[in-house]
């Protein structure tokens, strides 16, 4: 095998393919193969073992989990280099010709949670239009296209938007009171779970496909508001208008500074054992995080990646082949 083999997240795929293409053009190594198939599937193959018939790099739109590290180790994949390439901004956008929105997490919580507190009582979510949620909004029917439960974005959405809203509105206490559990911790967990349970009456639609599907749905239902990646939105400004979140307009800058709250880090993982064995692997990893690629003016940022403010550290880590959990 001559080429580097990469698999994993479909969110990272565009960035990885931009890098792979440029890598193939500028180096004598063959263009790396970048497969998609999901973070989980990618990491699974990554952890299948060491050797030519396993992949070298796994892209992930989330951090690798402890259990996975352990599974990796069991299969002999011990030295894993973790590389954070930047952030994926998550934005809320609606049809370009429709109403504009300035959201807070509270609005989303109220609009989508399966149950909400009305007059001190936990009841099934009664809201049908946005003005019922927040009087500042127009009387537009609520129709939300949120990432399905397979997507890591869903987790971010739940944590940083719904749960935040739940806590902020104070409804959390009502859930806590209603929660069952042996310990406080269990109760808290149950309450959190209840908070983020989304309604299933068709108002909130899970999108298991990709942002193109969300876009198509907004196309066919102009009242819809969807969750998108920043990069996707920036490529489709002719059809979408973005909503602010807590009065911050999402942009690479506002996300990089942390002002805009909803984003998630993107990673790739390299098998150290393959460095020096697979031609071009290390070069590829270094190229990926090089300034001219992953820097704020590089093609990745141009495409929509929120470049990591601490890119230098990342570059160092790659150069030194720093593996997870210390080690050399």
């Amino acid at each position: 095998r001559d080429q580097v083999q990469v698999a994993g997240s479909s969110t990272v795929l565009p960035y990885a393919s931009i890098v792979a293409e440029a890598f193939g053009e500028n180096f004598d190594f063959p263009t790396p193969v970048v497969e998609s198939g999901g973070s989980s599937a990618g990491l699974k193959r990554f952890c299948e073992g060491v050797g030519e018939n396993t992949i070298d790099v796994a892209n992930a739109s989330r951090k690798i989990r402890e259990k996975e590290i352990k599974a990796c180790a069991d299969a002999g994949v011990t030295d894993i280099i973790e590389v954070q390439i930047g952030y994926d901004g998550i934005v809320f956008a609606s049809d370009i010709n429709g109403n504009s929105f300035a959201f807070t997490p509270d609005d989303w919580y109220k609009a989508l949670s399966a149950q909400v507190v009305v007059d001190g009582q936990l009841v099934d979510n009664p809201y049908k239009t946005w003005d019922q949620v927040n009087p500042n909004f127009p009387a537009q029917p609520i129709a939300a296209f949120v990432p399905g439960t397979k997507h890591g974005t869903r987790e971010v959405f739940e944590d940083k938007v719904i749960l935040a809203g739940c806590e902020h509105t104070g409804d959390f206490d009502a859930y806590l009171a209603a929660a069952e559990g042996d310990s406080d911790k269990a109760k808290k967990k149950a309450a959190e779970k209840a908070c983020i349970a989304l309604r299933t009456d068709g108002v909130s639609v899970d999108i298991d496909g990709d942002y193109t599907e969300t876009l198509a749905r907004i196309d066919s239902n102009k009242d819809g508001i969807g969750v998108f990646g920043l990069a996707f939105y920036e490529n489709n400004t002719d059809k979408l208008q973005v909503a602010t979140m807590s009065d911050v307009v999402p942009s690479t800058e506002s996300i990089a500074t942390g002002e805009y709250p909803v984003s998630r880090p993107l990673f790739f993982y390299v098998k150290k054992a393959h460095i020096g064995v697979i031609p071009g692997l290390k070069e590829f990893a270094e190229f990926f995080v090089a300034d001219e690629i992953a820097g704020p003016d590089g093609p990745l940022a141009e495409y929509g990646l929120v470049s990591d403010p601490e890119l230098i550290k990342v570059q160092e880590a790659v150069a030194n082949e720093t593996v997870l959990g210390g080690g050399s």
Partner: protein
Amino acid sequence: MALSWILLTLLALAVLGYFAGRSRALASAEGDARALHSLPSYYGYNVALTALVPALGLLILWLLVQPLIVNNTVSGMIPDTAIAEGSDRGLVMSEVRRVAYGLDGAIASGLLSEVQARNADADIEALTQSLKDAGQVLTQDISKPILLAAQKYRSMTSTGSTAMQIMVLVVALLGAAFAYIRTHREFRARNVVEQGILALLLLAASIAILTTVGIVLSMLFETMNFFQLHSWKDFFFGSTWAPNFRGGSELSILPLLWGTLYISVIALLVAVPIGLFAAIYLSEYATGATRSIAKPLLEILAGIPTIVYGLFALLTVGPALVSLFGDGGALGLGWMASSNAVLTAGLVMGIMLIPFVSSLSDDIINAVPQSMRDGSLGLGATKSETVRQVVLPAALPGIVGAILLAASRAIGETMIVVMAAGAIAKFSGNPFEAMTTITTRIVSQLTGDTDFASPETLVAFALGLTLFVITLGLNIFALYIVRKYREQYE
């Protein structure tokens, strides 16, 4: 390419054997083919097959085993010290292989001589340089143990492949000779050849079985892992499907199963009548010209990528249905909230499945002998009566097969469901609500972001296996129906 050379030789030998066997058989019958037990060509095939099959078998076996032996021997040569921390023997072996191929390549391009390549005391730096000059990909500088291992690897491989070539040829020749000697007018060549073919047929049938075994096995272990992490009671008897990143998900198959059945049934309600009527029209009413155009055209429907159907559902059918059944729709019913609905998915899937029913049924209906139709028409039956009461029952096994195929496809479809029916699992009898199916959940749990060792991902395997068992039940039922109602014409 030693391999293609040896394959060509075998092929040539087989052809030669064919003619030799044939002419020997003819000679043994003094040129009179009638005196032979079998047709002369069977004697030829006998020799050719006896020469070819064992030799090919050996070749395949050898190709599988030799690398194992070579790898074991060579990797045994590598001292532990040569294996870097965190690396493993397997990776070093790939380096060894790369060097070995590099040496081959360098020899081929004339930059190294065979002697230099074999020289165990060669200057490593010079060697590295000449490999690089020859354009070979090297990842790091060659170390002594790796060079030695690579040289050993080369020599073993080349000895091995020489031995293989000789052995394979010997086996082929022996086979040919054996069959040739046995060739005699009394020899039951046809029976032997047919036995051979029967064995091949059996082999082909067993591939299907092996696939089943493979599928079950490849899902069984992960399914067991899943049930260790998640309660089987919830899986089989729970009522909610709600995977959650924090764990503690409710993962019950029942709402998914409901969605699967619901969508499939609607799809079949669309596809089976349309497909069957189309098949009947094509085979019984249409002129030859119409048939030869319409049938292949309908078959295109089966080949349109499902993503197109998905978009079609999402952008065209869904909104159209909403404008009929939705709030303020043409019918003023207000039944349908969004274009995501079981009905949308079922309708669109049904369209995709039309050719599965129509084309296969058409062939089977066409195969019903004309005398059956004549018998019925002669009694004053109309064409439709003939079709319904005589032709269709006679064609039943094939039609059931076609419907099963369509049902299978409906159960296995993902893209249309995802785009048209949504991703929310629930129990509801309302066809205007969104639902989802087992298969889509399998795909999304497998390709999603959840931890790959978590129940949320592993549930895909349990779903797959359960679906497998359920469809097995459906198939047994279908077989029973066919057996019971089959009408065998003469």
